[in-house]
């Protein structure tokens, strides 16, 4: 143990004099600063958008009040009012965008059928979105492993080339210990650089000290540990420095570029999700066909699911608001099963991705980061669930008035239901142990390779 610590001390001194190492860590730092800066801007835009919501809503209500002064039909007022819902980015989402720039941050809902209102996208530039983001998660998932590989890929080949190997072996030193000390010290340097960067990001973006932010840091370390194991394998398999560089690069390209892309492709081919469109088309069909049916038929369908309202007077005449809303709700209910299946399908995608990513540390780390930042698909689905709950609340609030055909004065608008953004914590955070097992497994393989007859 003492000998190992002495080795580590020697490695630290060696590292401090290594210009290349300083350069690599400096480049990583610079990339991270750029990523944090863009993350800061992105968060500021999201928060400004959400901060502007009450203002927009107030203006909107004023316009409605003007239209319905002194009073108006509650059904017509509910029809005209859009209610804002929002999904604020957590500070960590500035560091791991995940899917947040593809899905809406704000959805305005009306008392009409909900299914058609959930899948609209924010305005965005498809060409720019397709390129991905330069966020801190990208720096940590893709660039930090590369920095580590650059620093340690020739840990053994250089010794072998300079002829110090036999010397070391003669002194009774263990090659494995040397490799462990070198990779340990250099991996620590990269990990510390990443941690400094993360600390800086936390200060700039006001990231609170929570289990999520600590989990982020832990994920960054564990991810690098997995890569250190892979780097050890790279270091032991190659014979010359040039070969070890080629191997390191190949491993990086396969792990960071190819396998994640292959996972995506496989998943999109194996689990295609296209129900969103069918849902809306069918729901719309249901709603519009109701115009041509006897009113009573739609009402009866509605009463089956919502018996509380069956005592209200029957619908007569061509247009009554309660019939209109019943028709919309029947439209929603007719696609409820498909809607559930659609969401279940999306969640299955997420689960299977996480399982398949066990062997692709960068992909797994990306999932870890975006989950802890609340910027993954699950977080968006949870937001849509909150919108659903809010929409149900709207129905509970307005139906008694609509079914009693009551009028409303603008003074009553203040009591309208409001969306509350109580974001629940993610169900069960993705575990870190798959990466630890990967780290241990590759380290063990590397050690076995060292003991083999090849040395």
């Amino acid at each position, binding site marked *: 143990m003492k000998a190992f610590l002495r080795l580590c001390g020697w490695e630290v001194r060696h590292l401090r004099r290594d210009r290349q190492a300083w350069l690599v860590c400096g480049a990583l730092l610079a990339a991270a600063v750029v990523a944090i800066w863009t993350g800061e801007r992105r968060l500021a835009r999201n928060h400004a958008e959400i901060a*502007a919501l009450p203002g*927009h809503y107030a203006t909107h209500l004023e316009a409605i009040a003007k239209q319905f002064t002194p009073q108006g039909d509650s059904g017509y007022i509910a029809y005209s009012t859009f209610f804002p819902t929002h999904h604020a980015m957590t500070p960590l989402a500035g560091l791991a965008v995940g899917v947040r720039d593809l899905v809406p941050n704000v959805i305005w809902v009306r008392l009409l059928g909900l299914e058609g209102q959930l899948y609209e996208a924010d305005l965005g530039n498809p060409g720019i979105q397709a390129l991905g983001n*330069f966020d801190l998660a990208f720096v940590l998932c893709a660039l930090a492993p590369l920095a580590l590989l650059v620093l340690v890929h020739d840990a053994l080949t250089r010794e072998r080339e300079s002829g110090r190997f036999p010397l070391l072996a003669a002194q009774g030193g263990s090659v494995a210990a040397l490799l462990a000390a070198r990779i340990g010290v250099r991996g620590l340097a990269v990990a510390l650089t990443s941690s400094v960067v993360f600390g800086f990001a936390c200060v700039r973006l006001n990231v609170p000290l929570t289990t999520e932010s600590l989990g982020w840091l832990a994920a960054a370390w564990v991810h690098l540990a997995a890569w250190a194991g892979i780097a050890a394998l790279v270091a032991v398999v190659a014979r010359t420095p040039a070969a070890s560089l080629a191997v390191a690069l190949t491993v990086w390209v396969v792990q960071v570029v190819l396998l994640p892309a292959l996972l995506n492709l496989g*998943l999109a081919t194996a689990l295609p999700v296209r129900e969103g469109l069918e849902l809306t*088309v069918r729901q719309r069909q249901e709603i519009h066909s109701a115009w041509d049916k006897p009113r009573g038929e739609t009402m009866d369908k509605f009463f089956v699911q919502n018996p509380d309202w069956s005592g209200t007077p029957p619908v007569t005449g061509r247009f009554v608001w309660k019939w209109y809303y019943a028709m919309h709700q029947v439209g929603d209910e007719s696609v409820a099963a498909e809607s559930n299946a659609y969401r279940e399908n999306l969640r299955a*995608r997420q689960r299977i*991705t996480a399982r398949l990513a066990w062997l692709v540390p960068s992909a797994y780390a990306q999932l870890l980061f975006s989950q802890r930042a609340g910027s993954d*698909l699950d977080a968006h689905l949870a937001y849509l669930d909150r919108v659903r709950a809010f929409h149900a609340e709207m129905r509970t609030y307005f139906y008694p008035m609509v079914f009693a055909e009551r009028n409303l004065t603008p003074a009553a608008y203040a009591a309208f239901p409001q969306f509350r953004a109580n974001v629940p914590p993610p169900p069960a955070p993705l575990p870190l142990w798959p990466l630890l097992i990967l780290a241990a497994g590759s380290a063990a393989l590397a050690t076995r390779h060292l003991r083999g007859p090849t040395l």
Partner: protein
Amino acid sequence: MLPIARHTFTELSRDGRFRLNAALLVVLSVVAGLAGWQQVRALRAEAAAAAAGERGRWLDQGNKNTHSAAHYGVYAFKEPRPLAVVDPGVQAYLGSTVYLEAHKQNEPLYRPAQDGTALQRFGDLSPALVGQALLPLLVILLGFAAFAGERERGTLRQLLALGVRPVDLLLGKALGFTAALALVLAPLALLGIAAAAALAPAGQRTDELLRALAWAAAYAVYLGAFLFLTLAVSALARSPRTALVVLLAFWLVGVVALPRALSDFGRTLHPTPSSIAFRTELEAALGDPHGRETLEAQRVAILKQYGVTKTQDLPVNWSGIALQFGEERANGLFDRFYQNLWSTLVAQDRIFQLGALLSPAPALQLVSQALAGNDTAQHFAFLTQAEHHRREMQRTLNGALRDSKGSTAAFEWGKIPPFVFNPPPLTTALAPLLPSLGFLLAWFAVTALVALASLRRLRA
């Protein structure tokens, strides 16, 4: 020169590492291409089925009020382009469906990317990804030692002493590498040509085939630039290791990091307006009381024209006129607002285009997407055509409503033609790309010149 080329090629074709890497890349791109093929066919079948269903429902509306039908609306679908097989471009990031209804220009719906996990930000595997990111890497790995390695082994001095001209050495090696790389690029090109031939509708086949050929040519120019760059660095570098490190750093920054950074940079410089701000302003403009006043003036003028005092006494149905008036007023506003929005997106794209000053990758990405028919501009063409269809549809329906006074006959729903997207032809698609094409060719020319200039260092 030719013997050098032959020698370089033979050496490469015997090199196990080259054969392994090349085979791997070819297999990957073919697998990705076939998966893409499958997806294009599935998406097309779905779009066709959905469009047929929509059409059937539309024609089967019976004796319905034409304005109710206008509210019921139709969905316009965009079928995937054949060359999505080689470069899906922005396909997953844009909606392939627009809902066309009365009074409203809608945003496209259902972007497949919205249903993806956070992993998709790594990019999708496609022949384009192989060509844009991995083939340059292959070029670097093959060529970094071309001169630096010979110098280290001392064979360079021998060759020059034998009287071999440096220019012949450069061109010979370049030719040899090109022949080897052509073996890898050819399957990609064939994939594109096959997709264009098999998947394009009859009327667009020539256009798509030209696109496929131009697509392959663009990648050849791009890889040529990387080849000359690699040879130049190899001639200038003191050791093969230095050459490799310099080239890899360029690849990492120029191909991997830069496009993402430009994406964020573009959005920061030209932020996309938030949906609410956009909609609130649009709705405020639509609800402007001025609209109601001009409509009233119109009503008075028409009453005067027919010499009556009440709209009920008009020989035509006033609501048809009023609705069409509202449509036309709104159309002017939609044009103004969407032009504004799109010009922001174009400004973001321009930042990306300027990134070609630093690396050939952004230029190739834009050219490749556009040739495949999957860039933002051709997406806008779909939206523009869909919106045009919507306006024509409203005009016809409102006209029928106007003339329906006293008649109980059902509207002939077939009078509204089905929506068909006509993709812009190659020349139109290429027009906005001239800067990118220029950048791409400039990269090729400049790297070739630098490679020639670097030959002076060979004798040193």
